[in-house]
């Protein structure tokens, strides 16, 4: 696991067909009053494989920490695969730490909406993916 | 009577209220008005004993605070500025919050019942409902009656405290709690903010009625004159930048409505 800086950041991946992407980081809070939000967004194409493993570690002397980690994964194509493991290790109590992870496919409502405006399916999916990773 | 003597209130070292003198008599309605940032809500929290608000006295340094005469807030002759929030509540003070907390999982009936049981242990507790002793079933009926008098949707009573409530519903919930609690002194912290016309009327009238019946001293903190139309004030106090700049009767509130705070 690589150690990250505490900043607000969004990391984006487009995992192409046949690719394997691994993001494995520990975000360490070791001083008072550190705040940070990390979001990893990824789209996984058919036959692509993704592993997102992130740990927020808040140590004993990191009072007032405010930490947030989010994974958002869109699976495209029948054989897209993903593993998402958001972890928390919190060693003191005067903090706020949360994480969220969601994995799903293209929202059919969004797809229908774009197609009903005359955009073909392939193009619509492309637009939705672009918006997701914007 | 609530007596506040030369009170200074600091938050994180910054002075918000700078030497407040104020009294509220039983049965009296005192309105605290002022522009945003004048320190109105700070007054409410300081009175209720919120730990973030440091109270000191204009004249005496903090180190002398413990001396008997260096009281800053008294309630019915007893000093309360050195007491915790629950002790002040036990003394009969009730704060209706501007931003009421929600507590997921804490059922409303259960919470009100516990509140009422605690209050009824106090010897001079004058309950809305006599006799003082009620069974759980009677209590539930009583709560439903009170909720109906406030036009509060009864379905809400089955939920957790303030969980998922709209702003207006939360304010009504504060008043419902107040009616169950039956205080001697009531502080309304901007209860009118975010309320529609009908809700404001019902709440203000409800407060006016019970205050009169039970001789409750009321401190109404508000920005606007609206609420005072249904809850008439005996005394109006204007706060600006942490100091009281003007005191008057009902007419003062009407003046503000017409010409604004800047001109006072």
């Amino acid at each position: 696991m690589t150690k990250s800086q505490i900043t607000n950041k969004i990391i984006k991946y487009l995992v192409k067909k046949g690719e394997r992407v691994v993001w494995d980081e520990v975000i360490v809070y070791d001083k008072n009053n550190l705040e940070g939000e990390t979001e990893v967004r990824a789209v996984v194409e058919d036959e692509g494989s993704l592993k997102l493993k992130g740990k927020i570690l808040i140590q004993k002397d990191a009072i007032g920490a405010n930490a947030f980690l989010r994974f958002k994964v869109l699976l495209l194509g029948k054989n897209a695969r993903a593993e998402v493991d958001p972890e928390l290790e919190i060693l003191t109590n005067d903090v706020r730490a949360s994480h969220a992870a969601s994995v799903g496919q293209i929202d059919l409502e969004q797809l229908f909406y774009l197609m009903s405006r005359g955009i073909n399916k392939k193009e619509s999916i492309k637009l939705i993916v672009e918006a997701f990773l914007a | 009577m609530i007596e506040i003597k030369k009170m200074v209130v600091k938050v994180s070292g910054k002075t918000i209220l700078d030497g407040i003198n104020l009294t509220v008599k039983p049965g009296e309605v005192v309105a605290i008005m002022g522009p945003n940032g004048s320190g109105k809500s700070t007054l409410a929290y300081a009175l209720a004993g919120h730990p973030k608000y440091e109270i000191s006295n204009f004249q005496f340094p903090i180190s002398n605070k413990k001396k008997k005469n260096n009281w800053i807030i008294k309630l019915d002759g007893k000093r309360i500025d050195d007491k915790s929030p629950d002790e002040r509540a036990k003394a009969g003070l009730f704060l209706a919050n501007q931003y009421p907390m929600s507590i997921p999982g804490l059922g409303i009936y259960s919470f009100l019942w516990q509140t009422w049981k605690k209050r009824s242990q106090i010897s001079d507790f004058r309950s809305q409902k006599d006799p003082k002793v009620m069974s759980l079933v009677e209590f539930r009926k009583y709560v439903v009656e009170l909720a109906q008098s406030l036009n509060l949707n009864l379905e809400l009573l089955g939920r957790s405290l303030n969980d998922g409530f709209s702003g207006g519903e939360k304010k009504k919930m504060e008043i419902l709690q107040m009616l169950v609690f039956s205080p001697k002194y009531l502080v309304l912290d901007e209860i009118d903010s975010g309320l529609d016309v009908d809700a404001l009327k019902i709440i203000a009238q409800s407060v006016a009625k019970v205050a009169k019946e039970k001789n409750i001293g009321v401190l109404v903190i508000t920005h606007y004159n609206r609420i005072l139309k249904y809850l008439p004030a005996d005394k109006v106090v204007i706060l600006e930048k942490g100091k009281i700049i003007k005191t008057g009767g009902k007419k003062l509130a009407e003046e503000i409505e017409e010409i604004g705070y800047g001109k006072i």
Partner: protein
Amino acid sequence: MAKYKYGFFMPEDNVFKAKRGLDESVVRIISNIKKEPEWMLDNRLAAYQKFLKMKMPSWGADLSGIDFANIFYYVKASQKTEKNWNDVPADIKTTYDRLGIPEAEKEYLGGVKAQYESEVVYGSLMKRFSDLGIIFCGMDEALEKYPKLVKEYFGTLIPMGDNKFAALNTAVWSGGSFIYVPKNVKVDMPLQAYFRINSANMGQFERTLMIIDEGAFVHYVEGCSAPVYSESSIHSAVVEIFVKKGARCRYTTIQNWSTNVYNLVTKRAKVETDGVMEWIDGNLGSKITMKYPSVVLVGQRAHGEILSVAVAGRGQHQDAGGKCIHLAPDTTSRIISKSISMKRGRASYRGMIMMAPGAKNARSKVVCDALILDKKSRSDTYPVNKINESEVTLEHEATVSKIGEEQIFYLMSRGFTDHEAEAMIINGFIEPIVKELPMEYSVELNRLINLQMEGSVG
């Protein structure tokens, strides 16, 4: 079973009664005393060999303190009655008083009495169940009376090689419940482990097997929230549940073992088409608990739920959570975990959601909330979500925080002390799970947690 009460033992018994530690002879004697069929003895021996060979888990809580050589692997009921009320730790006795537990029950929980004298009360209930065709008896008895049924299912969901402690249990298991509910029978009141009065309840190596036939329903409750003193430091139970087509099973456990106990449990349910499995898991006691109730959703539209509440106090590590394996389309799962750590305790959520290829339209939601009451306590979340099917949905959320100051002030301004305010907030925090418990348990659980919190402020 009755023969134990009157001290009628086979000669070998007296020899190993005082023997600690485990070897093949102990396994043979256990099987011998129970007069088990050969296949079970073979099973035990094979499991013992597996246990010797398998490694300790490389993850989870710290199990280095387990001293396998120093425990009794078979404790007979009579041995239990040798204990004296004076031997029960003082803090446990105090808790019983505070909870208002009746005298007779105290002795049972304290391990002083072998069984709770309640044959009269429960006898008629048991008759009602058997009239419906329900089998509810101890596992030992089931092996004797229904050997074919037991053999068909035993060890098929949790094989001896599943993990080192499953192997241990398979080698030395004793006691536990066997339940069979016939097709379409819906049991209208919870079956409680207490009802099984003729076996030693709350044993160290209980083995439970439940089969809920098509369209049936049962709610089984084991354990209790009052603290239970156990001399044995390892409790390693195995529970296998088979939920057939359209059936539903709810399994509620509250454990409050004394803080010398390592509580290492393997629990798994297999759920067929349109079946529902609900695990309700309360972990209050023990020094270390490692327990992850699991559901394997093999049939279409099968549903699994795990509701878990864990309280970790001084010297405790609760490592708990759940696993949901989606093997069929349209399956759904939900995990709600609430944990509280205080006084240097550590609560960890460990979970797994797996969606296999072919589990189209599967959906899962996991919510973990943790409260840490003071700055010396700890909370962790270790979720693993393996998605090997693209047409699925997974949501996972976790939050860790302390009790909000504003909430405390709000309740104090209503006349509650800071302790009372904390207790109210905590009760509200665990309410979604507590409300699923049978009434007596929820009342006891709330009071217990409040008791445990005393002295935790400041």
